């Protein structure tokens, strides 16, 4: 079990009013900020459960936009996130869903499109105290929490790819805390999620990306 730090008790330092509805929402959107292409044209936030009911009063909407812009949970600009989004030409839409098909009462699906029409979606839950879980990527069930140094890798579902990934990490003396592998269909797209104890440097990611069966590697460090 992971030890609890004193800074999880006296902390997190955050923009209020709610660790789950504000800070947690921001962290989910920050994951999307790390995964998505730089030139996001439009984003749709679909809110479920308690998020759908109380998002305005908790500033969940502002926190989500702020997270997508890359702000962290201590950023005092979060309150003005809509203004910063307009300045950057980011179009955002909020939808509420009365579906009960969500894993946790505080859930949001974030769908982004870039200027070329490429689409990426994630679904995340705010599970309390600002902690989150990412439950879906592009409709596929996954899991990671963002608590560790996380690599999100998309690649062909073929022999040798995972060996290449772990080889790159072991060469740089990086210990894997958790590793999970998901695939859409046999022989097609696959996702590998690595959670490591140590920071992962750019050159590791560069070396990993050299393999032509790897589509892209994204570092998620909340």
């Amino acid at each position, binding site marked *: 079990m992971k030890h*609890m730090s004193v800074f999880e008790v006296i902390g997190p330092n955050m923009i209020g*009013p709610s660790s789950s509805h504000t800070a947690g929402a921001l962290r989910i959107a920050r994951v999307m900020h790390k995964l998505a292409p730089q030139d996001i044209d439009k984003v749709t936030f679909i809110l479920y459960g308690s998020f759908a009911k109380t998002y305005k009063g908790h500033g969940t909407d502002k926190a989500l936009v702020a997270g997508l812009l890359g702000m962290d949970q201590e950023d005092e600009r979060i309150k003005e996130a809509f203004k910063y989004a307009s300045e950057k030409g980011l179009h955002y839409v909020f939808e509420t869903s009365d579906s009960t098909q969500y894993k946790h009462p505080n859930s949001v699906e974030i769908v982004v499109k870039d200027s070329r029409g490429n689409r990426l979606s994630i679904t995340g839950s705010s599970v309390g105290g600002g902690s989150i879980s990412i439950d879906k990527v592009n409709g596929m069930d996954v899991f990671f929490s963002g608590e560790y140094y996380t690599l999100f890798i998309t690649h062909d579902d073929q022999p040798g790819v995972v060996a290449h990934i772990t080889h790159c990490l072991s060469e740089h003396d990086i210990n894997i805390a958790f590793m999970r592998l998901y695939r859409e269909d046999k022989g097609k797209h696959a996702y590998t999620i690595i959670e490591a104890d140590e920071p992962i440097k750019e050159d590791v990611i560069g070396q990993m990306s050299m393999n032509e069966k790897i589509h892209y590697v994204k570092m998620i460090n909340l």
Partner: protein
Amino acid sequence: MDFISAVELIDKCSQENITISEAMIRREVTLFHIDRDSAIERMAHSYDIMKRAVERALSEELLSMGGLIGGESKKIFDRNSKGKSVCGDILSKAISYAVGVLEVSSSMGLIVAAPTAGSSGVIPGVFLAIQEAFELSDETMTLALFNAGAIGYLITTNATVSGAEAGCQAEVGAASAMAASAVCELMGGTAEQCLDAASTALTNVLGLVCDPIAGLVEAPCQKRNAMGASNALISAEITLGGVRHIIPFDETVEAMYRVGKSMPVELRETAMGGIATTPTGCQLCKNILN
């Protein structure tokens, strides 16, 4: 090096002849491989955020997102400044500062969740009032935050500090216990006394429900933070006077958790019971959500 109960914490403090805050700093250094100075520096930053939040509430016009609170800190502070306080200077300031932090939090300002955003006023309220009254340094107050952190860590590990899980007794109750313990240490109390004061504070609010109007962290949360701050000072005062607490801290925490689990879901942050579902509470909720 780690401790997972109050019994182990007290043992550690007496074996090594150290305070609870020192035990917590050593735990942090050992388990998270950071040096002592960085840990203290990081905590000093947290204390600075707490102080700035209190200052903002006293100097700026704040209005919460839901519009239920704003401006309370100044009103209480001003009355005390005119020498009219019913409670006396320390308690009046603690109350004023505690409600102020909730104003900052609910208007999307920067606060320290200690242990949660909903209970974030208690520790700054108590700490700043005590610091001013006894002319203590920021360094001393920063160390005392590690003491508060130790209590919060024990409650989180062995029960919960989540209102959704165990009601306000878990949130404001934990914050109050944390502050009570820290005040005891600041006033020269022993580790046992710190835990006694924490037990008293938690016991005093056992059963307190979480029933936020419109589901927002505004009312009754803000005034419960004032209560949490005063409860911390009351508990420290009782303990420092030499009064022992009958039930050990670990058992008190376990009792709080049991009470929390037996609370109906309506009274655990769902806004489906208590003050939230009074006719006026419901009307306010309708106005805010539409």
